[in-house]
């Protein structure tokens, strides 16, 4: 049993890890009760589990929890809330850029990381940044519009 400290959304959280192979996603969802990161594939293929670790978008399903000890982790709930959504969340709401919304965590987290790296992305930049984020409902066109809107209004 190893105890690790995760700095999630600005708070230090202790998590007991009995299997060193446990992905971060399980610590976030099951130990800390977060809903933002979703289990989609567990294989690093879809992006539903995205979080931001030390400023970079990362897939929490293929990131070991123990490797994130004392690292700065941001999840969807840490970006903003209903009263004060982040500018990316606000843009997604304005574009109604979700159908079921299951993939949207990954879209917003990846877009947030993109915009902090590149505040004025082209549409091609957006498509490339999101190329490994899958959506089954077909919300893509609105997601692109939302990211460009967030950049514009940022």
């Amino acid at each position, binding site marked *: 049993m190893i105890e690790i400290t995760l700095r999630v959304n600005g708070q230090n959280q202790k998590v007991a890890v*009995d*299997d060193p*192979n*446990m*992905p971060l996603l*399980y610590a976030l*969802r*099951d130990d800390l*009760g*977060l*809903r*933002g990161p*979703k*289990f*989609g*594939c*567990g*294989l690093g*293929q*879809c992006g*539903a589990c995205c979080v931001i670790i030390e400023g970079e978008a990362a897939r929490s399903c293929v990131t070991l929890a123990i490797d994130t000890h004392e690292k700065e982790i941001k*999840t*969807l*709930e840490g*970006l*903003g*809330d*209903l009263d004060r*959504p982040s500018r990316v*969340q606000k843009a*997604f*709401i304005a574009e*109604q850029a*979700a*159908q*079921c*919304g*299951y*993939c*949207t*965590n990954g879209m*917003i987290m990846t877009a947030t990381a993109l915009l902090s790296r590149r505040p004025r992305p082209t549409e091609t930049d*957006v*498509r*490339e940044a*999101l*190329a*490994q*984020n*899958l*959506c*089954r*409902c*077909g*919300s*893509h*066109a*609105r*997601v*692109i519009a939302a990211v460009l809107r967030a950049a514009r209004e940022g």
Partner: protein
Amino acid sequence: MTAITRRSLLCSAATVIVTFSLPRGAEASVNTVAADSVDGYLSVARDGGVTVFAGKVDLGTGARAAIRQIVAEELGLSPGRIALVEGDTALTPDQGSTGGSTGIMVGGVQIRQAAATARARLLSLASASLNRPVSDLETSDGMVVARGDGGAVSFASLIGGAAFELPIDKTAPLRNPDAYTVVGTSYARPDIPAKLTARHAYVQDHRVDGMAHARVVRPPAIGAHLNDVDASSIADIPGAEVVRIKDFLAVVAPREWDAVRALRQLKATWSEAATLPGSDNLFEAVRATPVARVEMLRSVGDAPAVLDQAQRVIHATYSWPMQSHASMGPSCAVADIRDNGGTVWTASQSTHRMRWTIAKLLGLDGAKLRLVYMDGSGSYGTNGNDDVAFEAALLSRELGRPVRAQWMREDEHGWDPKGPPQLLDLRAALRADGSIAAWETVAMPPVNTPNAGIPLLAAVAAGLDDGRGSQSGFTGMNSDPPYAIENVHAEVRWLATTPLRVSNLRAPGKIGNVLAVESFFDELAAAANADPLALRLRLLSDPRGREALERLRQMMNWTPRASPLERTSDLLEGRGIAYVHYKQAENYVAMGVEATVERSTGAVRVLRVACAHDCGLMINPDAVHAQVEGCILQTLSRTLFEEVTFDRARVTSTDWSSYPILTFRDVPKLDIALIDRRHERPLGAGEAAAAPVAAAVGNAIFDATGVRLRQAPFTPARVKKALDEQAT
């Protein structure tokens, strides 16, 4: 425990396990969930807030906004004052499954009539209290208002907290569509802000005290029997247990990751099984399958005789592969089975039917079983949600504690019920002037038993169900041409069996059927050297269909000419159209595609999709737009990339690399024209625009290259092969 009723839940809130806070004052209509009574669908609380109880659910489609708009418009109050309960078997009337694009067309229309009946009652109550004739009264903003002197009385004081005790009056007058102020506007979806800030609980997020996490262990081959399980192989995992019932095998653990570890680590031996034809031999197997029943879809004139005697007959065979729902989030459910009943939290599209299915299979009292709908990852028909709901219930009953079961990615891709394979033979007779004298379609989908549900994996494995029965939707529809042709013979040969378990998958059968019909129509147009759009218009009299095509003509800047274009460069550009009158009864959709084909690689790139869409009255145009976008993009994905592969034993496309879907790089420019028909009945928007996508892409490829693709998906390898054959 006694039967779970709306009364018991709403009146004894302390003992209720609810996943949402119950709408204020919903106790006004505790007595009934009858689908023919006003109280079944709505109640007015003491404060005048209205709660709507809908048997059908919002699958990310915007119905949550649209249903509120419908009720707000009929009753005369703001949609923000309406709470909505969806799909909860104890609280909502059974309006049937959510599917086939019936959420608004059937479910919404029932609720609209309930609201109209309620409004009529409110007006007559107000007439007595204001001492004015009903004809002087109007409803607005939760009040009944008298014209002229402005005397007014609120809904709350007229009926707040009391039941209507009225059957739905089918003749209760509806609002005049010309006066709509809420219906027809793009009222924002109320669920989106919470979903986008992680404040919304999906079924995957639901937790119950004391629950175990479960994973089901699938056999290495479909139909394999379980020989042995070595429970000691997971002894080192804290709290992990094995559950076995005949061939049903599962692991549970208090922590989710430990259940996943146990799944990976458990040693079990299974018998061998090799019951499948293999996806490479799929269509040979389909053709060799016995026919269970023949349905004459359309018979006009005497097509077989005309074809027999014709000078010029063109024939072609089209096929559509098996495809997965491939939902982004693996199916999940939580069940707490106790005292011969209990609760199941599920994203099933059919909570009302599944309640009785689960009760029957587990020998529970259906009256004591409650299914609570919670959002899951989008589903487009029956995916794994019904399976996993039963798995959670079965395990909870076995273990005597709450269980949360979730599928793994390989379960979702490997074991979800698949969209069925389709094979269609077409023939047409052409006259000397190139006009079509006769048309024949023979469609060969697997047999469909409507409303039967599908055999559930765990029920079959545990020996509770014989695994027979098949439901995959009305997969024969739209295999007949929508055009005025003198002799038409369209028959559906329903096949007795099909490889893999099947279910209804978005626009069931219609995408493959329209691919066949609308591609073949273009083959005939090309044979006659005719412009495909002009030929369609010549043979189509329905004004709504014609308008959709005319709109498309403008959107595409269509210049008349025959296909294909003669070009020799490597990157070839083409255009294609397709048209559908959905189910020959519902939406009118005209679809146009501009695409390039790279001759050297066979890569197809769809640059632009234009769509003219008529679904009658639109409750919420932005939600319709989003559904049409979804139909187009998901179907482009199915058309270009998707094919379930399997060997003799099992599905081999079990993740996103072996079953790729459309990515952001592949998304074309979308131009969607929504035709406003506010005096027509509202139709669904979740399926129809899917139907013509593949045909429009195929026709664009033909226009670009002169090569006709008759088998989807149109992968580079398949396109390249066709181009190479053309060259020789």
